[in-house]
């Protein structure tokens, strides 16, 4: 069975379906519904035998590169341009097919937002290269 990462982004990706405020400015009951949905996705994946893992990332990012011999690593400092892509977290799933991965990504994207309306958030679906060569 192929594995896929369903990536959520803080920013970047295609033009959003519709603009929305950051979550801390939603009504408390909308926040609650959204968080309940996230837990529900994990439970659903576990129950279907499709769950591998889920993680969230903090928004802080440091770019690092080798500084050369006898030199400290080079890191970026200061905030990065608002346009750069920033991953927020992911679900890792193990599913029958690409179609199933797309179906699940669309379900994740239906998460409730302000006024209980779906967010229509873009989900970045990436296949994980498998560990063993396929048999011919």
């Amino acid at each position, binding site marked *: 069975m192929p594995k896929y990462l369903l990536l959520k982004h803080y920013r970047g990706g295609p033009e959003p379906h519709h603009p929305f405020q*950051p*979550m*801390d*400015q*939603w*009504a*408390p009951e*909308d*926040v*609650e519904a959204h*968080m*309940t949905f996230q*837990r529900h996705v994990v439970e659903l994946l576990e129950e279907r035998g499709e769950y591998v893992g889920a993680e*969230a990332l*903090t*928004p*802080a990012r440091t770019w690092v590169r080798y500084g050369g011999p006898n030199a400290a690593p080079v890191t970026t400092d200061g905030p990065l341009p608002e346009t750069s892509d920033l991953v927020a977290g992911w679900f890792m799933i193990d599913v029958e097919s690409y179609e199933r991965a797309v179906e699940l990504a669309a379900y994740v994207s239906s998460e409730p937002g302000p006024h209980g309306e779906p967010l229509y958030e873009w989900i970045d679906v990436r296949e994980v290269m498998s560990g063993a060569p396929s048999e011919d």
Partner: protein
Amino acid sequence: MTEESTGRLDEGALRALVPRVLAGLVRRGEDFGAAEDALQEALLEAVRVWPDHPPRDPGAWLSTVATRRLVDARRSDAARHRREEATYAEPAPSTAPAAVGDDALFLLFCCCHPELSPGSQVALTLRAVGGLTTREIADAFYVPEATMAQRISRAKRTVRGRRLDQPGDLAVVLRVLYLIYTAGHADRVDLAGKAIRLARQLTLTTEEPEALGLLALMLLNHARLPARFDSAGRIVTLDRQDRGLWDTGEIVEGVRVLQSALAAARPGRYQIEAAIAALHDDAASAEETDWPQILAWYDDLVALTDDPVRQDPSAVLGRAVAVGHVLGAAAGLRETDRLREVLGDRHRWHAVRGHLHELDSDLSAAAAAYADAGHRARNVAERDHLIRQAARARRLHVEKL
């Protein structure tokens, strides 16, 4: 699992023998890592043999079998290195007299060797003294079992050949136990409970008031655990907890342990933090919290360091909350200003300011501070809690307009 627990062999009792037997081997001059490996093999052997042939003295049996394994290991090493077998056939003579009661302390000093990183100290302590399997430790820290096995064996290599008959640094041991306590992911492995048991063992072997202080601190905080999360796993802050859910048994024990620590009149940070926890536990409702008394203890806490803002900023931040409740929210906020440079990027600093703004009835500022805290949180439960706090404060603000 059911079969094991109702079977003829009590695994818990078996694991409880580990510290005494291991300490005996190491005191006799055996290498710590090799002795630990040999004892693990002896435990496996015990699980296999004891149901049919229960030993008369289980500890002596384990010690004998582990010793045999050590001799076997030395023989094959010796063959590899073409050395004389006879040199290694008997363990080196004991370098320190064995005092059975001190075994746990002695092993803790081994596991908390100052050359080990905190992560390795924690792993080795849980395995050698706590009796957890490598699998259980790996689960507790969400890493693959192979990764944890490697961390433990690297740690054992680091302490190999080090003299372990010197008294260790008790402060390091206490810090490691507190690390284990605070890492407690109750849903998988009960590390907090394990840390409490280890601290209790430790207090049987040392009179050091800070060891008692640490045990008291753990008990007094752990008592509130049943009220700290609701049924959906959401964080419930101290002021909103159902105090009827607190574990009164742990509170009583914690207060008793704290009193015996304070009786020595040698205060330290764990005793002071325990005293603060005791005052929270003692309040029948959030409104009845004795904030002036708490502030007095915080004054003692920040007095322990020369430059508390730099050396102990979390104490200064905790004190700012107490100042807010005693002298008013504005005074508390002024206290947090001193920490802006040191803690301004940490979620706790913003969360405390959110709380103080709310105390000051400035709900707009509170919502903004909670949101800033949420964006800096480093675990999902806290992030979600802070975003909820922001949304709640904003709603209250809008309703008041």
